[in-house]
Every structure is written in structure tokens, then in C-alpha cells.
């Protein structure tokens, strides 16, 4: 009797150990498999959002709306039009054609986005300015970028309306060269080159589901 019971105990202990190990392994597996399990996101949605981000940037670059938004600043202090002391837009895109494209593509569908402007200071130090900041992106955020070339003759833009009545950025007579030369005027990027090139700005759109 005593012998038979000891064997059963040993077997039971072994199986219990296996259950414990299996549970740990299973738990680890569960955390690794976020797509298609009980998660708010999936890889396919991320791919889709990245593609939409690419499309918005390409379309905006093609029509010039992207560049006009990058130049949408007050000449006096280099900050964007229509923002409060925070220095960036928080509840949607800027009141420009590019901003309208962002709103229609993302925030109207419950998708949050940040837009950052990366540029170089003294031709090597990378600096970043926030254009739109809706908060800290989540882990499944995707990001897409587009380079915008600024020349000395590019003019700052200001708020205006399109023939259809929508807000958009319209050009002013103030070129980047003149703003750079004037003592009481500034732009957030400085002229880093002797030639007609003023600077290169990398526009980054970060998108994630809320």
C-alpha cells in the first residue's frame, strides 16, 4: 500500500510541474501574439494606415499643399498660425489644405496622428518641431515621411480661403531669404546653404488607432 501510494505521489508531482511550465509557456505565447488575438490592432490595419499615410503625403506633396503648410508661420516669431502657447495643433490638422486631408483621412475615422517636422541646424544637427501633437503614440503606431525642399525664393504663407470657401494657406510676398535677412523676422529653419537651396524639411506623419 505505502509503495503504490508513493509512486502515485511522484507521478502527480511530475504532472503538476508540467502544468506549471505549460502555463508559463502559454502565458508568454499569449503576450507575443498580439495580431488577431484579443488586441485593438492587427498587422493588416497597420499596413493599411501606413499606406494611407503615404498616400496623403504624396498627394499633398504633388499639389504643393505640403510645402505651403510647412511655410504657414508668422514672420514675427516663426510659430504656426492659429495655435495657442503650446506651439502646435492638438485637435486636428492645421487650417490648410494638407490639414484638411489629414483630418478627412484620419481623425474623422477615429485615428489619431502626430505630424513632426525634422530639419537640420548648421547642416548636421537634427532638430524636430511638432506641427500636430495629439499625444504619445501607442505601440502599434506607424510612421511615414516625405522630404520637402525649401528654396530662398519660397514665400511664407498665411491663412486664406480657397474658391470653395475652405481654409487654406496662401502665399505672402515674404520670401525665406527676406525673412532670414530681416532682424525682426524669423522662420523655424535657418538658411544652411550659400546657394539657392534654403533647407530640407522631413515631414513625418505618425498614425495610430485610438
Amino acid at each position, binding site marked *: *500500500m505505502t509503495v*503504490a*501510494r508513493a509512486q*502515485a*505521489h511522484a*507521478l*502527480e508531482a511530475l*504532472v*503538476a510541474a*508540467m*502544468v506549471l511550465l*505549460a*502555463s508559463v*509557456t*502559454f502565458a508568454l*505565447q*499569449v503576450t507575443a*501574439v498580439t*495580431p*488577431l*488575438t484579443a488586441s485593438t490592432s492587427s*498587422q*493588416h490595419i497597420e*499596413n493599411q494606415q*501606413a*499606406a494611407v499615410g*503615404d498616400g496623403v*503625403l*504624396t498627394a499633398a*506633396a504633388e*499639389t*504643393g499643399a505640403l510645402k505651403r503648410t510647412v511655410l504657414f508661420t508668422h514672420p514675427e516669431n516663426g510659430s504656426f498660425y492659429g495655435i495657442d502657447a503650446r506651439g502646435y495643433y492638438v485637435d486636428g490638422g492645421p487650417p490648410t489644405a494638407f490639414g484638411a486631408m489629414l483630418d478627412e483621412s484620419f481623425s474623422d475615422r477615429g485615428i489619431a496622428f502626430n505630424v513632426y517636422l*525634422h*530639419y*537640420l541646424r548648421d*547642416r*548636421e544637427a*537634427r532638430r524636430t518641431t511638432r506641427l500636430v501633437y495629439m499625444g504619445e503614440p501607442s505601440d502599434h503606431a506607424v510612421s*511615414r*515621411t*516625405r*522630404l*520637402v*525642399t525649401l*528654396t*530662398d*525664393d519660397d514665400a511664407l504663407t498665411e491663412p486664406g480661403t*480657397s*474658391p470653395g470657401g475652405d481654409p487654406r494657406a*496662401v*502665399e505672402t510676398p515674404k520670401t525665406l531669404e527676406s525673412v532670414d535677412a530681416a532682424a525682426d523676422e524669423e522662420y523655424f529653419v535657418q538658411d*544652411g*546653404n550659400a*546657394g*539657392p*537651396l534654403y*533647407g*530640407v524639411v*522631413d515631414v513625418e506623419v505618425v498614425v495610430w488607432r485610438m
Partner: protein
Amino acid sequence: MADVTDAFERASDAVGEARESAGERALGGDDRGQLMLVAALAIAVLLVGLVLTLNTAIYTENLATRTTDTNLDGAVAHGGAVEAGAGTLLDEANREGGTYGELADRFDETFGNWSDAAATLAAVRGAATDASYVDHVEGTRISQTDAARNFTDRNETADWTLASDVGVRGVRVNVSRDSLATSRGSAFELVVDDGTDAVETEIYRNTTQGRVFVAVEDAGGTRTTCSVAADAGDYVTVDVADGRLNGTVCDPLDAVHTDLDGAVTVTYRNAAEAEGSYELYVDETNATVFDATKYASAGSGSSPVAQEALYAVTVSYVYESGETYVSREVRVAPGEIA
């Protein structure tokens, strides 16, 4: 554990009076409960194993349906940025003037700076990029910067041909609203003719509404218009190749791309009915295009000016990221017609 086993023992004692012998007791009811427990645990382990296997299958399915083709989005976007950047810098370099050699050197240097800046910014995203100037096509820039002068040639001829049998690009007009004719019949007209088909663009204004109209007659003779409101400023810009009127899309202008083929002749009619500035590029050298009866030379202070300019440039670029290597040469001629 021991307490439970004892309870089982007492229970089986009460029920199974017949199995009282010591031998039967060792294999019987006393240990069965424990074996059942062990069996239950074994089944639990099996189930856990099954779940793991199924889970792996789901994950594999997910992996299999992800896009596995090489991701070229970054390379394509960079190619677009190279073309746009080179196009902008090309016209900027041209506007500063000089000989073909000086223009090519200026573009080379400026584009080199652009490439350095772009490479530094792209490095953050894990991409190595480089772009450089390869070659150029010599051309001529025809322009007028005096915004108060009308569009006539140097001798003030109102109907004149700017260039014949040439490739044309970057036709941009910035015209004063008040100088325009008030009816279409006498309006300033820009005619682009490829020998068989012609596209005529007329610019005029409406006195009562104050709107500025751009009427485009395509090769088939159909006339379509677009217009700008009266309060949109004293000057109106028309970008013919880009199809834009004051920065807004003007679809009728697309006719210059769809209806024309090959080399074209550019002509102004009723040029006294428009004042402002304009520029366009043609793909013949300045020696061929320049005609002292029509044009003034650069730096003379008179208008219009025909001067040396780069019509097109060829640039090469390389884009390399973890999984892709793209090396291309592209010809850049922003706003080319036909």
C-alpha cells in the same frame, strides 16, 4: 492530502464490506481517487498542449497572410522627393543666370548640398541615400520681370512668336487684373501649336463681376473656362503646365498635355492686353532662340529677356535600406508640355 485520503478510506469502508481483505485494499478504493486526480492533471496538460498547437497555427496563418514582397514604399517616396527637389533647384539655379557652364556648376553644388541634407535626415529612418548631378540639356529661359510692362516683344509687336519647333516647359504667367481686356474677343491669347493641333488660352476679365477668366480652346475647338473671384488680389497667376489658376486646379489647361504632341510653337496674340511677368523654358540653345528684334539680353534691364538656361537635368540617386537597394537615373524637366 492525507486528510482527504482518510476520508475516502472511511467512505469506502462503509460501502464495500465485501472487500475487506488486505490484498484487495492496496489496489482498491483507497488509491483510486489519487489516480483519478493524476489522470485529470494529465488531461489538463494535454489540453494546454492542444491550445499551444492551435495558437501556433493561428499565428502562422497570420504571418502567411502578411505582405512578404519587398517593401519599396521608402524608395518610391525618396525617388519622388529627389525629382521634386531637383526640379525646384533647377529653376532656382536658372533664375540666377549665367553661362551654361556656370549654371551646371551651380546646380551641381546646390544639389550636392540637398543630397547631404536629405541623407542626414534619411539616416534616422535607417536608409542610406545619395543623389548627384549627371548631365543636362541646354535650353533658353524666356522671361519678363517688369510687372508693369505688357506682354509685347521688344519692339512692342502685339502678335509675336516666342519660339518655334521647341520643347516647352514651366510656362508661368503672373498677370495684372486691371490690365486685362474686358471681352474674350480682344483678350490676350497664348497659343501653343504642334503643327497639326493648337491649344489657345485666353485671359480676360468681366467688368461687372470683376472675375478673371481663363478660357482654353482645345484642339477640337471646344472652349472651357475657369475663373478667379474679384477679391483674390491684384495679380493672377496661371501655371499652364501644372494646370493651376491662382494655385487652384484649372482642369481645362490639361489640354496642353493631352492634345499636343512633339515640338511646339509658342505665340502671343493681343499681347498689349496683358501686363505682368512671365517665364518659360524652351529646349533650344540661346544662340538659336535669341532674336534681337524680340528679346533683350540678360542684365540689359529691358524686357523680355532670353537667356541661357538648363532645360532639363539628369540626376542619379541611390536608396539603400535593410532590405532594398535602388539605384536610378531620372531626367528632371519640371512642367514639361506634351
